[in-house]
């Protein structure tokens, strides 16, 4: 297990370097002038020239690459033109909001998706199975941004149950920054009103974000359960007179969860990507909204910063899933 972990960590560092190279290539594929890209659309020729000198863009590509990698290692992601603040500071400010949203959505996806998958496997081809099938196919096809707008129209405008957008009401003072997760920080501070407010703000975006994730977790879990339920050890367990629910929920689910776990890891990264859409719809102040508003303002450094951050989170989660997999199933350690 130790050598496996070390090998995975080494691969993790390799992929991170690779992503850094990829973002450097993206910066340099622009048909125009990278200095102009960094300077923004309203810069004069003089300003572009100054920026070219300042950011070392007049140096040869190899040297630029070395500087870029050096900056990355020291955590320097450049400066935003719009806010004139270092990108890394802004990422630190926005990342907790995105992670909080993704974790809540992932939680919803697992808590609803796994039992529904289990149920539709047990009652295969029954009414529950048909409903969940429609649910899981439409879940992947629903445009997140449109679904979000519909939810806002119904639950916020028509019914008035939940707030339309944002993370907290404007008049509410956020709790002291401890984890950055409002749900946790407000509880630590003992402010239940703030907790309630942040919970009511996170529900809609989390549901929208979790929908496709829920659909695919459901599908994988259903397929695995159907296969596992036909295996000999389940029949043996049944023959021993173990209660039907114990067999399904404990004996079978344990083995069906492995591929579901892989899907959860995959969907985590996918959700990080689609926060870009969900955060735009719900004005959720996370890295996705930050990337979009920067891209629209032709502010390039923050976009690359967010891409790197999302990529890094994704690789870390994939590595964790691989390790969990190997921990559960020792046969995979030699792979």
């Amino acid at each position, binding site marked *: 297990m130790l050598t496996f972990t070390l090998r995975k960590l080494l691969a993790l560092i390799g992929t991170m370097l690779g992503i850094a190279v990829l973002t450097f290539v993206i910066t340099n594929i622009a048909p125009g002038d990278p200095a102009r890209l960094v300077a923004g659309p309203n810069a004069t020729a003089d300003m572009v020239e100054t920026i070219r000198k300042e950011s070392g863009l007049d140096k040869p590509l190899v040297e630029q690459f070395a500087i870029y990698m050096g900056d990355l290692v020291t955590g320097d992601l450049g400066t935003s033109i719009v806010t004139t603040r270092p990108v890394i500071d802004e990422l630190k400010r926005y990342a907790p909001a995105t992670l909080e949203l993704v974790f809540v959505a992932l939680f919803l996806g697992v808590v609803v998706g796994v039992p529904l998958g289990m149920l539709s496997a047990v009652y295969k081809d029954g009414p529950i199975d048909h409903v969940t099938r429609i649910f899981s196919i439409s879940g992947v096809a629903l*445009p997140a941004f449109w679904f979000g707008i519909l939810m806002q129209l119904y639950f916020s405008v028509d019914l008035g149950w939940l707030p339309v957008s944002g993370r907290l009401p404007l008049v509410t003072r956020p709790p002291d920054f401890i984890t950055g997760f409002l749900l946790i920080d407000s509880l630590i501070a003992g402010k239940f009103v703030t907790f309630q407010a942040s919970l009511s703000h996170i529900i809609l975006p989390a549901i929208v974000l979790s929908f496709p994730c829920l659909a695919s977790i459901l599908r994988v879990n259903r*397929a695995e359960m*159907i296969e596992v339920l036909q295996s000999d050890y389940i029949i043996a367990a049944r023959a021993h007179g173990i209660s039907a629910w114990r067999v399904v929920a404990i004996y079978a689910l344990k083995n069906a969860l492995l591929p579901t776990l892989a899907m959860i890891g995959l969907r985590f990264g996918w959700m990080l990507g689609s926060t870009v859409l969900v955060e735009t719809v719900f004005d959720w102040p996370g890295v996705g909204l930050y990337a979009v508003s920067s891209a629209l303002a032709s502010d390039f450094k923050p976009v690359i910063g967010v891409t790197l951050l999302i*990529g890094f989170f994704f690789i870390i989660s994939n590595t964790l899933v691989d390790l969990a997999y190997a921990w559960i199933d020792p046969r995979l350690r030699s792979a």
Partner: protein
Amino acid sequence: MTPMELSTDRPLSFAERHSSKIRQWRLYVHMFSQSFSSMLGLGLVVMFLVLAAFGPWLAPYPGDTTGSIDLANRLLPPDAAHWFGTDEMGSDILSRIIVGARTSLFIGLVITGLGAGIGVPLGIIAGYKGGWLRAGIMRVTELFLAVPGLALALAIVAALGPGITNCVIALAIVWWPGYVRLVEAKTLAVKEELFVEAARSLGAKTPWILWHHILPNCMSPIIVKMSMDMGMAILAAASLGFIGLGARPPAPEWGTMISVARSYMPDWWWYSFFPGAAIFLTVLGFNLLGDGLRDILDPKSRDR
């Protein structure tokens, strides 16, 4: 057919020469038509193709798709004259959605085509050749798959500048690695088969083997993936349009329409509702079609 008939010199008719193929196809058609969701998917896709092909003739107000302004009729709710209502320029939303089908289909075709066109050859080569070539191709592929597609596409569009062409380029760049992984895995399995070994021992050249033996045996999953990807590519392009990095208004693109419509929420709900429904039904259609194709072409991977 008795042996006597076989020995006659009469040339066999088309139906006789291809009788097993025909039987196989009839089975496919039968299985496909038995499934409600497959037929629903096919129906949606056909409807969408018809709209894309004949849109300008089917649209009730074709002039409204090119940016004509009719402020007297702006933001009308759905009624008999304008089934889906009108937008802030007084254009008929139904007409704009119908004509937008062509844009979306074109985007989907180009992204999927480029993705498969780059990914399939690389996947076959990586799977068949092995060694450093495979290691190199697969490293680059995994690298692209290590960043969520939408985030990577956003960065590429930000570098290239907004616009529909740049969106298509960006999405094609993030789309090909999926095909490499799929085809590489399939090729690894197929190349161990006896008929490939037989072809090699008869002195067949590598390109011949790849084209005549490996590729045909990888086709089923590729077709299924391409059908699914048509939907997903259309969805991704609409997403970039929604963010504001895709087609520029007044071009009738569904995602861009919703992006503009968002500032007319909630009172003018129909403006964002109908373009979104068009995206949803199109993506759903291609997904169901892909699902149905998988059930008949690749039955072993069902439910995956």
